[in-house]
């Protein structure tokens, strides 16, 4: 049995192989996540939705041990370079320790169920997990 699932955010596409989708300016190719009014780089008003590579490299990370009430800690927050497009995400399937998380580490997109609402619908978020190589 599979529960009905929805993406946690609009820029996550769950159908097929899960992947992220950016708003790309048709004028200057600047990429953004989320709803846009215009392009912050060139002022253009037209965008196309483009898929983002599902593998990448950790460009920066932190291990958060103090956060707002209700946020489970510790967790690893990172910026992942996905073939030239930067993505903010948590790293999962890795111990939250500097002995295990490395700058330059290769990672791949994965999904995480955030919770189920009163109608049994699961919200599915994305994160990155380490991969070989």
């Amino acid at each position, binding site marked *: 049995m599979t529960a009905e699932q929805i993406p946690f955010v609009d820029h996550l596409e769950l159908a097929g192989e899960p992947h992220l989708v950016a708003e790309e300016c048709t004028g200057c190719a600047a990429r953004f996540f*989320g709803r846009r009014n215009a392009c912050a780089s060139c002022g253009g008003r037209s965008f196309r939705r483009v898929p983002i590579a599902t593998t990448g490299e950790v460009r920066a*990370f932190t291990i958060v041990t103090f956060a707002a009430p209700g946020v489970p800690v510790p967790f690893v927050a990172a*910026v992942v370079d996905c073939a030239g497009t930067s993505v903010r995400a948590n790293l999962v399937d890795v111990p939250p320790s*500097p002995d295990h998380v490395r700058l330059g580490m290769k990672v791949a997109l994965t999904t995480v169920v955030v919770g189920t609402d009163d109608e049994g619908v699961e919200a599915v978020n994305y994160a990155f997990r380490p991969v070989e190589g």
Partner: protein
Amino acid sequence: MAEDLWILGIHMTKFGKHPDEDLVDLASEASLGALADGGVTMRDIGVLAAGNLLGGAGSIGQQLQKQIGQTGIPVYNVANACATGATALRTVCMAIKAGEADYGLAVGVEKLSGAGLLGVRPRKQEPGTWTREGRLGAVGPVDGRIGTETMAGVFAQVGMEYVHRYGAAPNAFELFARISEKNHAHSTLNPLAAYQKRMSLEQIMADAMIAYPNTRPMCSANTDGAAAAVVVGDSTLKRLSLEQRRRAVKIAASVLTSDPWQEACQVLPDVNTLTRNAAEQAYELSGVGPGDLDLVELHDCFATAELVHYDNLMLCEQGGAVDFFRSGAPWRDGATPVNVSGGLQSKGHPIAATGIANVWEVATHLRGEAGQRQIEGARVGLAHVIGLGSACGVHILEKAAA
């Protein structure tokens, strides 16, 4: 050519806990101190810019006037994150440069003792059914689920990105902790710092981890405090007494920038480009180069931030911040002393006051009035702040020729 601007009077309160004083008390103390320091009164002031970011005070400028002088002048209540104080100073500089006023007063004040972790909002209750909200169309809070919104975590990544880019990642934790060790050592000479305690590298690294690699003493201290400055132009200064002219400090450059679009800047804030842009403009305006600086007060909101700003302010070659630090240059007896006040990590960071307090620190050295922490013979200095979001203020100051 617009006339040169001068700091005529400047004052900061002690940073730390002020349980018996409210925002207006602290703003009054700083403002009356700056006016007295400059030998003027509220009657002389033609424009007031005031900042308070997190106090919910509303019109802090008018509240201040109601205690120290309601003279009917225009008031600009400004907000620009951690650059709020620098923005107030920049605002009066623009007014005087435009010829709209002869004397300007800029003040910043904050009460943050015991404020805890900034940049986070408590997670709200999950709804009964998923509802999309905000620009990302998220069905729940994203902090902690899609990276972090804590300041300590954001600036940790800023520092880690730098050491990764320039191949200095091994021992990054120890490197950042050593920067904090420097600032805590410097603070022991500053009676206005909230914390004046030397800390060993081992103590810093063993303290509570907030967001790796930043432990608690590597984070700016939430404190109460205020700072204020009186600014005048050449034409006004030349009418004043020899003593006032002797103690006036020249504002060789006053620059404010915001973050220009860069790839990834809406993913992890880019605190680098706008700082470099501000520094370039300030060096160009003043004719001063990084090598001329006798001291620098830069925005070490976290130890990880100080490192990148050595590079952004061009105190070293591009990519050379680690070597610059390891050479000992930013220690108070080094080639380019950085944060001899103790920096935000020990002096404290009452947000809206910070951008004027760092100008006070530099001005006090240029006047030769910094007591036991005086950088001998200081003639030129730079003060830098950055507010996430982002705004960057850079002021270059020079000792009076008189």
